[in-house]
Every structure is written in structure tokens, then in C-alpha cells.
């Protein structure tokens, strides 16, 4: 399977690492031989129609930016859209940074891939949060697959669990802690009795929070994931604009302490039910399986016949997300194989 990798940040590098490693571990013997034929980033691309060797991928990583400076395979300043259009490949792996204003340039990359008949694996929440109904429709129209399991739950297969393992049952509502950063901050405040500002500073020190933390603490990241769950799992066609969002800036130590008196704590929850999609801090009982601490994520699927099911796992990190990409690639390969053989 030939792959164009778009975006060469933490996740992009993680993808090449995992592919290289799995390659040497003879994942090829399972009939899966991923070949990265191009890596495209804002400042250019490297292209090799025969696929880069694991050693070469490793060398790119060590050499660092700009990869397009490579004397043998480099195409400095070649636009990403041109790479997607002109390089022959089955799949585009899109791992560029998130933009929740207009989802660009990722949205253009994904639609270009569709139009040129390429499947897409993305870990980018922006395009999905703003245009998920449009993208799934466009993928179907062009007869290609769109996979994005890395966008929710990172390494924890939350989307697949609900879609596959709960198939046949009806999911009535979804509620979850979908953002590790805010969960870490709220856990720290409660357990170490410190203020929001202190907990945020700690999170930033440990690398859990960005220097510009708005995406996490104002609830946008959780809201994006809520949109994805809503569309993919519940079939409710919404976008980010339809989510009612409140972040955790206003959560005080005092509120946490008051909650604790009732054996509760405060968590930032994303909820989808008949009333729509909402993101806001809410009290959760200590005995609720959703009540996980630290950077953990947890999500509860309320089903019609199988009662509540909760999945707990580590949220996004570079390598976990990269692993989700591999999972999606295998899924697409599997789907393609059954399509070609039928």
C-alpha cells in the first residue's frame, strides 16, 4: 500500500517510526507492506515512487527540517496539493496541525485526495469538527474511505469499539472525558488542593498543556471529539457550531471541595443525547466508572440493550496517535482486499 504522508510534526514522525519498526518486525508477513512514497510539508516534499526504506525514513527524522532539502528525493517548495494530485498512491495520511476556524489547509488536502481517488487517514480534528457530514458524503461519492480513529481517544479505540463491538445495539447517549489536559488539571486541583492557575502551570511544565492552552481548557478539543462521536457513532449530522461549549477556566478549588463533600468531583464532560451536544464541567460521582484521574480519558456508551459500557485509556500522545494511523491503514487495507476480491 502506497502512502503519501502530509504533515511532518510529532505525529507525522511517529507514523514513519511505527511504519519502519513494524516493517522490520515483518508485519509484511501479514500481507501488509506500507510504503511511504512521499512526505509533504509546508516547505516542500520528498518523493520516491518506489517507497522509502525504513533506514531512509529514519534518516529524514534525524536530519530534521526541511526534509525537502534531501539531494536525492527532495522537491523544495512543491505545494502539498500538487504532491497529493501528482504522486501515485492509495492512501493519504493527513497529520497537519489543527485549525478549528476554517479547518484549512487540511480540508483542502483531504478533498483533493478524495477527488483524485485516494483514501484518507487523518488525525486532524479540524476538518471533521467543521465539515464531517460533508467529508463523509464526499468520500462516499468518490468511492474512497475516510478513517480518523486517532482523533478520539488516541491509542484507545473508542470509535471502533462503539462502531463495531456495539453493532446492532442502539447507542442512546455518549458521555465522556475526552481531553487529557483538562482532566489532568482538574485532578491536580482536587488532589493537591491547588488553584486552576497553578495546576495549569504544572501541566504546561510537564508538557501536558500547550503554551497557548485555549484549545484544551476552553473545551474546543472536547467539543471537536464530541462532534466526531455524534456523527460517526450516533449518525447525528452536526458541526462544531452546534455544540454548546463551556471550558474549565471558571472551575475553582472551592467548587471542587464542595463537590468532594458529596463524594463527587468535577470533570469536563462531552455529552451527546437527544438534547444535542454539550461540553461543560459537571459533577461526577467518585464511584462512576467515568471518574478517572490524570491524563486518562474515559467514555461511557449508554446502549439500549447492553446497558452502560465504559472505555478507559490514555488520550492522545504523538506515538499513540501514530499507532491509531496504523490501525486505520490496516482497516482500509482489509476493506480494500474484500472489495477487490468480491
Amino acid at each position, binding site marked *: 500500500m502506497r502512502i503519501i504522508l502530509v504533515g511532518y510534526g510529532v505525529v507525522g514522525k511517529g507514523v514513519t517510526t511505527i511504519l519502519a519498526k513494524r516493517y522490520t518486525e515483518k508485519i509484511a508477513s501479514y500481507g501488509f507492506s506500507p510504503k511511504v512514497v512521499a512526505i509533504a510539508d509546508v516547505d516542500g516534499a520528498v518523493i520516491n515512487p518506489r517507497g522509502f526504506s525504513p533506514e531512509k525514513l529514519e534518516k529524514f527524522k534525524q536530519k530534521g527540517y526541511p526534509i525537502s532539502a534531501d539531494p536525492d528525493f527532495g522537491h523544495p517548495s512543491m505545494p502539498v496539493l500538487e504532491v497529493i494530485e501528482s504522486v501515485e498512491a492509495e492512501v493519504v495520511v493527513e497529520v497537519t496541525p489543527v485549525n478549528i476556524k*476554517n479547518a484549512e489547509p487540511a480540508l483542502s488536502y483531504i478533498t483533493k485526495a478524495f477527488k483524485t481517488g485516494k483514501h484518507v487517514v487523518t488525525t486532524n480534528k479540524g476538518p471533521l469538527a467543521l465539515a464531517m457530514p*460533508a467529508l463523509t*458524503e*464526499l468520500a462516499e461519492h468518490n468511492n474512497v474511505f475516510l478513517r480518523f480513529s486517532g482523533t478520539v481517544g488516541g491509542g484507545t479505540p473508542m470509535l471502533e469499539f462503539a462502531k463495531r463491538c456495539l453493532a446492532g445495539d442502539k447507542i442512546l447517549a455518549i458521555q465522556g472525558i475526552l481531553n487529557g489536559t483538562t482532566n489532568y488539571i482538574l485532578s491536580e486541583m482536587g488532589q493537591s488542593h491547588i488553584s486552576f492557575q497553578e495546576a495549569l502551570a504544572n501541566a504546561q511544565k510537564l508538557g501536558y498543556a500547550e503554551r497557548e492552552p485555549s484549545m484544551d481548557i476552553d473545551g474546543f478539543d472536547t467539543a471537536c471529539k464530541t462532534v466526531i462521536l455524534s456523527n460517526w457513532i450516533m449518525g447525528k449530522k452536526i458541526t462544531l457550531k452546534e455544540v454548546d461549549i463551556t471550558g474549565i477556566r471558571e472551575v475553582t478549588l472551592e467548587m471542587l471541595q464542595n463537590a468532594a463533600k458529596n463524594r463527587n468531583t468535577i470533570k469536563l464532560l462531552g455529552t451527546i443525547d437527544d438534547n444535542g451536544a454539550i461540553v461543560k464541567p459537571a459533577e461526577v460521582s467518585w464511584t462512576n466508572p467515568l471518574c478517572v484521574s490524570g491524563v486518562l480519558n474515559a467514555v461511557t456508551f449508554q446502549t439500549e440493550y447492553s446497558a452502560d459500557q465504559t472505555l478507559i485509556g490514555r488520550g492522545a500522545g504523538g506515538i499513540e496517535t501514530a499507532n491509531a494511523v496504523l490501525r486505520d491503514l490496516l482497516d482500509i487495507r482489509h476493506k480494500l482486499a474484500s472489495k477487490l476480491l468480491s
Partner: protein
Amino acid sequence: MKKVIMKFGGTSVGTGENIRQVANIVTHYSKEYRITVVVSALAGVTNKLLEIACQAKKGDEKLVKTFTDELLQKHKETVTSAITSKVLQEKVNQIIEEIIVELGKVLTGICYVGELTAKSKDYVVSFGERLSAPIVWGTIQDHNLETQCFTGREAGIVTDSNFGEADPLMNFTIHLVRERLGPLLEKGVIPVVTGFIAANQDGVVTTVGRGGSDYTATILGVALSVNEVWIWTDVDGILTTDPKLVSTARLLPQLSYQEAAEMAIFGAKAMHPRALGPVSKENIPVRIRNTFQPENLGTLITKEPISNTEQAVKAVAMIKNVAMLNVNGATMVGAPGSYAKVFDTLGKNNINIMMIATAISEANISVIIKRSMLSRAISNIEIALSERGGLVSEVTAEDDVAVIAVVGAYMKGSLGLASKIFDIVAKKGINIRMIAQGSSESNISFVVKEKDGIEIVKAIHEEFNLDKT
């Protein structure tokens, strides 16, 4: 502020004077509503474009020149009478000239290549709306309103590549239209969008086919989540029957989507069911109004008929220019797939079946088709299916018939209704040739001799009190 789509049909933009009336309507409602305008081509232009495209295929280059000159003249005259400001006239004329030059090149291309694909036909036809929209845009500007002109493609309507009959990729369209028109509406700008034409995902021009500009209007209505879609035309709305047949025909103030769809057979003055598709899913009301009587509220089409009356029958129509085709064959009895072969033969010859009836004995099937298609239908069924020992033993036809359709949502479950209808016909001493009622029960159709048609329509209209509110 409430949002509304206003679609203006060919007659509404037929002359400069009419376009001024359009701008007056838009101006009047602009204080109350955020308006998006959808326009058809100038009356008659689309058909002329189709004609010239077919002629260009034969390679007559001179004809192209004459045609484009005339078309330019026609539109320029319209500009002069629609727009008062000389500056605006100049601006719009310049746009029109550029578009006409492009059209000339396209038609000349067709002359040279000598072929007209569905794709190029869509391209040629699209010029009708591309030429009318700038005039409407200029005239609205002339009324000191802020406005912006879009083709369907620029507005964000993306369709599949089924040229001539393209369907929108609705979710993708919603995404793009909201992004492109949404912010303008917020600022109080009035977008003027070409009806009928859109583009596929690669930006190649497509047309939406049946339903036309009305379809564009409802697509945009859904994309912009408007409160209502207004279809401005040259009639007051949908009537209980054809006023040319029955002088007491009355305007129907309210109808359900389903009833409206059943009334598509009433001809061009009603809405095509395809155009009602997008809005009926989202439950957005459609109002059919008269551009030249804007004080009338027209016909409102909603999910449920809000009508306070339990009146079962809402309307009655006569469909003329049809013929009845009877296919007989003893071998059809109990043979799975035998009807399919008959329909397949008709379908392959591009003959649309309008109505079907067959008895449980299966030895005979009657279909209603357009009268102009009759000889083709008979000939092809005979060729395909009545070989020695074939399926069909005999094909007969009657070409002096008409279909009478009785429509109403509350007809469902209304006992004795069919008996009442047929009683009316029987009392007139008229024989019914064929009957069909679908299980939706909102339409009973039957076939009589055409000469008896008007009398029956009048009688049903009167007996069911359709002339009284």
C-alpha cells in the same frame, strides 16, 4: 431576522419592466427578511440555447454569430429598461458582453467538433441563467441595496456528474453554501444566485434537470436553514383545477408536500416533486406567489395540511395528450418477469410510463404514455416481444383518451370516496377505460375518452364543492 429564499421564474424576469417589479418586491421585503434571490433565465432563452446547441452540432458557424448577436441585443435591451443608472447599465452590459463572447466560443467549438455531449449541453444551457442573474443583480443595486452575484457553482452547490439531471451532494453543498453565503446574509447583503446550474466537484458545470431553478431554491433553502422558500411565478398559486376548464377554479391556500407532489402533473405551474425533496426532509415551508400580484399570499406548502377542513378531495386535473397502450398475451400469466420485459422495452426506447393498471388475471396490462410516443411504443413492443410464441400476442392502443386525477391527502381511509367519484362519472353516462390508485391513497386516477374529460372535471369539481371554501 427571518431568512427567505426568493426564486423568480422566467416570466418574472422576462422583460426589463418585470425585473424592476422583482427588485421592488426584494426591496419591500428586505426590511423584514434576509433574502437570497434565485433567478431563472429570461423567458424562452433556455430553449433557444438548446436549439442553437443542436444546430451548432451540424456545423453552421454563421448561425452561431446571428444567434449570439440577437441574444446580446435581447439582454442589452432588458438592461436598458430594467436599470436607470447609466453607470450600472454600463457595468452589467460589460459583464453580459463577456459572457456572450464565451458562449460564442463554446458554440463555435461545438460547430468544429460536431458533437454535443450531455456535458457540453449543460455548459451551453447554463448561459441562460448566467446572463439573467447580472441584470437582476444590477437592478437590485439600482434600488440602493447591497447585493452580490453568484453562479450556482460559486454559491457552493456541488453535484454528482450526472449531466443534465445532476443531484446535489447535499452535505458538501450545505458546508460550502453556509461558508460562502452565510456571512454575506449576516451583513445584510442580498446574494443573487443563478438557478438550475451548479458544478460537480471538479468545477465542471452541471444542471439539475427536472425541477430546475425551483430545485436550486430549495437546495439553498436547506443549506441556509431559511424560514420559507418563496417561488415567485406568474400565477396566484396552485388551483383546484385548470381555470381554463372550470371558471370556478379556486386558489388552494395550503397544501402538504405530498399533495403538492401529486399535483406536479398539473403542469409547469406546480412544483416538481424533485424540487420539494430537500425542503420536505427539513420541514421548510414553500410558498408559491404571483410576482404581478404580490399582495396575494399564494399557496403555502407545508408538512401537514394545516387546513381546518376535513375536505378529502383537494383538486382535480385532466391530463391530455396521452394514449393508452394495452398489451395482451396469455403467456404473460404466471410468468415472473413478464411485465419487466414490457417496461424494459419501453424504458430502453426512452418512453416514460405515466400510469399502469393490470388485473389479477395477468393476461393484460394497460399503460398510459405520452401520445407522441404511441407509435414508437407499439412498434417496439411488437418487434421485441411478439415474435412467434413470444410473450405478447396483441398490442392495441387508444389515442383519444385523457387521465382524470383526483388528489387530496385526506382521501386516505375516506370510505366511499371512490364510489362517489365513479358514481359522478356513471351518472354522466360515461365509460371509464382504466383505473389506478396507489396505496398512498392520495391520488385516484382514471382514464376516459378525451371528449368527455372536461365534463367530468367540471362535475367532480362541483360535486366535491371545490369551488367553495
